[in-house]
């Protein structure tokens, strides 16, 4: 299974719920398209919920980084929510923990955008 992405609004924060695998091909391009679409519509506060992401490869990591810079370049902020152990490990290995703001509680994460 590739990734399934749904977006919802919590106050002025857009939450992307990702389910499945973010890997080279459909998964990574779907994620890229979703983020670009949000930014084009003026959404500048983005929270990516990775609780149901079972698997992510270097291409998927690259898309997360690209999404982060895309949103930042528009004056916005992208944060991550609910990382599984494997995704946490990947962010540690790649030192991206120093780049992303990561949260475990959605309500608390949304408040940090204020």
């Amino acid at each position: 299974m590739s990734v399934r992405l749904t977006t919802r609004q919590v106050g002025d924060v857009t939450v992307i719920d990702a389910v499945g695998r973010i890997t080279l091909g459909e998964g990574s391009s779907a994620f890229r398209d979703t983020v670009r679409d949000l930014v084009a519509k003026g959404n500048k506060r983005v929270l990516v919920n990775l609780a149901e992401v079972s698997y992510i490869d270097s291409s998927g990591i690259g898309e997360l980084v690209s999404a982060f810079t895309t949103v930042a370049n528009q004056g916005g902020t992208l944060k991550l929510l609910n990382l599984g152990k494997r995704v946490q490990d990947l962010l540690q290995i790649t030192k991206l923990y120093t780049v992303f703001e990561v949260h475990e509680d959605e309500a608390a994460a949304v408040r940090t955008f204020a």
Partner: protein
Amino acid sequence: MAEWQGAETKILESTLDSVDRAETMVLERARVLGFDEGDLQELGIAVRECMVNAVVHGNRYNVKKSVRLCLDSAPDRFTVTITDQGNGFELHAVPDPLADENILRQSGRGILLVQAFMDEFEVRTLDPSGTEVRLVKYRRAKTEQE
């Protein structure tokens, strides 16, 4: 329990479907060999990264070129060898993805993940062309508590 020893080789097309096929084949064999879920995830990612390198960067999706996948298991190790027919690459020429100036680059982290997840990782440029990568995961003896 009897287990699957020895070598098996498959020739795969230069497509992204082959990346999925290779991952499936490796994980099927690794499960039989008794690797745990953590090891399986690591093997899966490492194989995907190397297959993507072979298909995308090595063979550049060229339908006339193929990727050779060889699985070989021994009592102490599981070895996966992936060979493409591309122009080869120098491992030391890959930019360090952990350097501050590269941390926000979109690509270039595949080799780092492979090195982190495998017990041995070797890259060899073939003559006249092609790259062979050898991935090894050690099989650890189970303890009484496991």
